[in-house]
């Protein structure tokens, strides 16, 4: 008999070694995430997948499922925590959706809609993060970085180029480019790299195609991130 745990009262089967998030997605249940990707080891930095398992708050992406656990995810309490996390992500960077090319395709924005975030609530940091437009095909707008390290992992583990890294601590943490000059143009980064196509927010942008799909017709303009992600994991 397969092992199972209860997610919001619903039985979810799992195999040994699977995390709560993996098992839930495979079984057709949505637990939100920003830094998680099925092809990479869990990172556990965005904390959007926070659930209550056996009475404790854990990251569903990094916690192996256990037989008989009762996991609480889609509840007012957990969704309230997620809204708070989103609000902190919004004030920590410079997230101005109206002037962002990624608007409508952005997972951070889509999660804001999903959890009905109406205000960023806290005091904005307005950090100074200059853009890097040196590369012929790709623009880096660090203002929107949420430090998920998806580009870091993709560039290192798949592209074999190690173009990106995070440096600094706390409020000084930031994404850097692996070149003497610090400029993307001085790396072997290419627009077909996985790292160039994995950013969940609007940091890594392809030049000359920002508005090829107009605002209003984009991924999350007319569909929720919940429905899109569930469709992805079932296909």
């Amino acid at each position, binding site marked *: 008999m397969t092992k199972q745990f209860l997610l919001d009262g619903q039985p979810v089967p799992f195999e040994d070694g699977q995390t709560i998030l993996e098992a839930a997605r495979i079984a057709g249940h949505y637990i939100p995430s920003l830094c998680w990707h099925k092809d990479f080891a869990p990172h556990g930095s965005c904390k959007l997948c926070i659930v209550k398992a056996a009475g404790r708050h854990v990251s569903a992406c990094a916690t192996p499922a256990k037989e008989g656990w009762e996991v609480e995810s889609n509840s007012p309490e957990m969704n309230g925590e997620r809204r708070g996390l989103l609000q902190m992500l*919004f004030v920590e960077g*410079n*997230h*101005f*959706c*109206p*002037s*962002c090319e990624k*608007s*409508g395709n952005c997972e951070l*924005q889509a999660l*804001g*809609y999903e959890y*009905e975030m*109406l*205000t*960023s*609530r806290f*005091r*904005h940091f*307005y*950090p*100074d*993060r200059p853009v890097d437009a040196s590369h012929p095909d790709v623009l880096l707008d660090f203002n929107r970085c949420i430090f998920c390290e998806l580009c870091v992992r993709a560039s290192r583990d798949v592209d074999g180029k190690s173009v990106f890294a995070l440096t600094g601590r706390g409020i000084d943490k930031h994404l850097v480019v692996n070149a003497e000059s610090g400029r993307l143009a001085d790396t072997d980064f290419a627009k077909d790299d996985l790292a160039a196509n994995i950013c969940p927010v609007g940091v890594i942008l392809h030049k000359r195609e920002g508005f090829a799909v107009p*605002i209003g017709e984009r991924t999350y*303009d*007319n569909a929720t991130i919940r429905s899109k992600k569930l469709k992805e994991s079932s296909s």
Partner: protein
Amino acid sequence: MSPAPARKLRVATTSLAGCFGCHMSFLDIDEHLFELVELIEFDRSPLTDIKEVGPCDIGLIEGGVCNAENVHVLREFRRNCKTLIALGACAVNGGLPAQRNHLPLSECLREVYQFRPGIANGQIPNDPELPLPLDKVRPIHEVVRIDYFLPGCPPSGPAIWKFLTDLIAGRTPRLTGGLLHYD
């Protein structure tokens, strides 16, 4: 909609560091304006040209806070309005004007008034009647308490209508069915 209350609700609106786009979007509720004027009357607003806000039920604030006059007007609205609402992206998070926040204010002023191409002998305006700019543009919730937030650049006419009808009917306003947008 519930039947019109006996007393019309008094509504004030203003644009601080905004572009009046949210006010234009407000007018985009089109024929609902006829229903709305049965339920509300306007106090201070660009639509009435009343200059000082009086006691109101609802205050709608477009735009963030970029100068001393904005702070004054915002505090006057808070003092007079039972329910104060941040209308649109700039009021909610600073929006476009806040994009100057990573630059020193003096640099912005010099760039515009002294070094812009075509300007000869330019100088930074210093007339005492001009409100002093703040060093950073701030969303309004960082200055006064705000009761409700309605994001969007601008929030669509249908979003504003849904929000106002919820509020007037005494429900907690809720933007559902794709009405919530940040862009």
